[in-house]
């Protein structure tokens, strides 16, 4: 059982059949991370003694200077024996619900749009998560785990739902959409992520989503609608797609108590050509948010998820609008 010693924190933990970051998180330690798949580089650590091997060869989250400085990625590095590392642990990365690996059976599917499908899994070993968090799914015949955000809220932890957008030619979503059948089993590892619902934030809530960013934002909205301490808060939900066939979410939100009074849905499309009869907004998510809420934006707790271009534009708009950084919650997957 390899023992990992964090030299600058005087802490040691065991890492068996696991990566250095995830084993630490399972112990409740605040090992910095974000994407968990080797891309973002947030989980870099310095290897001072011992030997590790990366799950994913040449992960994009590591550059040549890192390699020269003997730095590795915590989410990818598996120990080959005892190791001593240097990493700055931080409290904000500690897990509220410790991540665990479990088998899960596909119990239900529903198409939400032409390319977004909801997958509902029953976990063999229940575990809780916070609205907005994500999990790593290991799929049969797909190398490496993939990160997907949950779309539901759970008090029992036995059901985890995911709304996933098909990536044309993508290995993982092709497997999920076309091969896995009801009753099949995959491995789910989670929960992870810091973009979870802040129930202690005394502000109205703005959710901005595009594409597969739907899933965590639906979870946030569901969690906020159900939260006793957030009952007085408005929930504004903007969902953007290219054309009307990409738009969804209203059917789910309209089942929440308070829909139409304190919960509002604002669909937006970015390519209006040939879509006569469209009654929603036309424009990008960040522009619609600015148009609808303008000078009031700093009064919101803002959650956002979507493709990188959308997230970057949203981030830039919110910073320009002087929304305090502590009120922004998103997964930094790149």
């Amino acid at each position, binding site marked *: 059982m390899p023992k990992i010693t964090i030299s600058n924190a005087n802490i040691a933990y065991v890492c068996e059949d696991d990566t250095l970051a995830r084993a630490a998180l399972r112990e409740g330690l605040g090992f910095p991370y974000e994407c968990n798949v080797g891309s973002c*580089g947030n989980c870099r650590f310095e290897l001072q003694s011992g030997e590790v091997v990366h799950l994913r060869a040449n992960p994009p989250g590591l550059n040549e*200077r890192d390699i020269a400085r003997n730095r590795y990625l915590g989410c990818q590095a598996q120990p080959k024996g005892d190791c001593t590392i240097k990493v700055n642990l931080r409290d904000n990365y500690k897990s509220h619900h410790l991540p665990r690996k479990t088998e899960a059976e596909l119990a239900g599917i529903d198409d939400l749009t032409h390319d977004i499908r909801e997958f509902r899994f029953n976990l063999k070993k229940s575990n809780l998560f916070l609205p907005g968090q994500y999990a790593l799914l290991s799929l049969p015949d797909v190398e490496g785990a993939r990160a997907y955000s949950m779309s539901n809220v759970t008090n029992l932890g036995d059901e985890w739902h995911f709304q996933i957008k098909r990536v044309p030619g993508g290995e993982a979503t092709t497997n999920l959409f076309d091969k896995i059948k009801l009753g099949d089993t995959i491995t789910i590892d989670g929960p992870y992520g810091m973009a979870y619902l802040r129930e202690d934030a005394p502000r109205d809530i703005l959710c901005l989503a595009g594409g597969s960013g739907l899933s965590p934002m639906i979870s946030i909205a569901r969690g906020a609608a159900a939260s006793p301490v957030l009952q007085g808060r408005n929930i504004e939900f903007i969902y953007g797609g290219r054309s009307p066939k990409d738009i969804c979410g209203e059917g789910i939100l309209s089942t929440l108590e308070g829909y139409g009074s304190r919960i509002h849905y604002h669909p937006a499309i970015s390519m209006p050509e040939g879509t006569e009869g469209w009654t929603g907004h036309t424009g990008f998510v960040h522009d619609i948010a600015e148009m609808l809420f303008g000078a009031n934006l700093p009064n919101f707790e803002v959650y956002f998820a979507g493709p990188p271009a959308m997230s970057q534009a949203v981030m830039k708009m919110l*910073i320009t609008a002087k929304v305090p950084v502590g009120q922004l919650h998103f997964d*930094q997957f790149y």
Partner: protein
Amino acid sequence: MARVDLCKTSEVDEGSAIRVETGDLLVAVFNLNGAFYVTDDTCTHGPGSLSEGPIVGDTVECDFHNGVFNIKTGEVVEPPCMIPIKTYPTAVDGDTVYIEV
């Protein structure tokens, strides 16, 4: 405003920085040509520690994602960071570097 003592001037070599943790604060203390500047240590983009980044002129590069900040003003000089780093009014009293918070 309260005075918070951070370190001795001799602890920070010219052209370098150290990380200081005190109370709720986690800051980087920079020595630029004998003048001291203090910013938050944690990059505004990720968990990178600015006190560990290379210093060029008045700027520091976060060695996690290569974003660059102006040490004196906190402004972003190079992406991916978009949010300025917080800076603190810094002064020296005898051989003690302190900030006002």
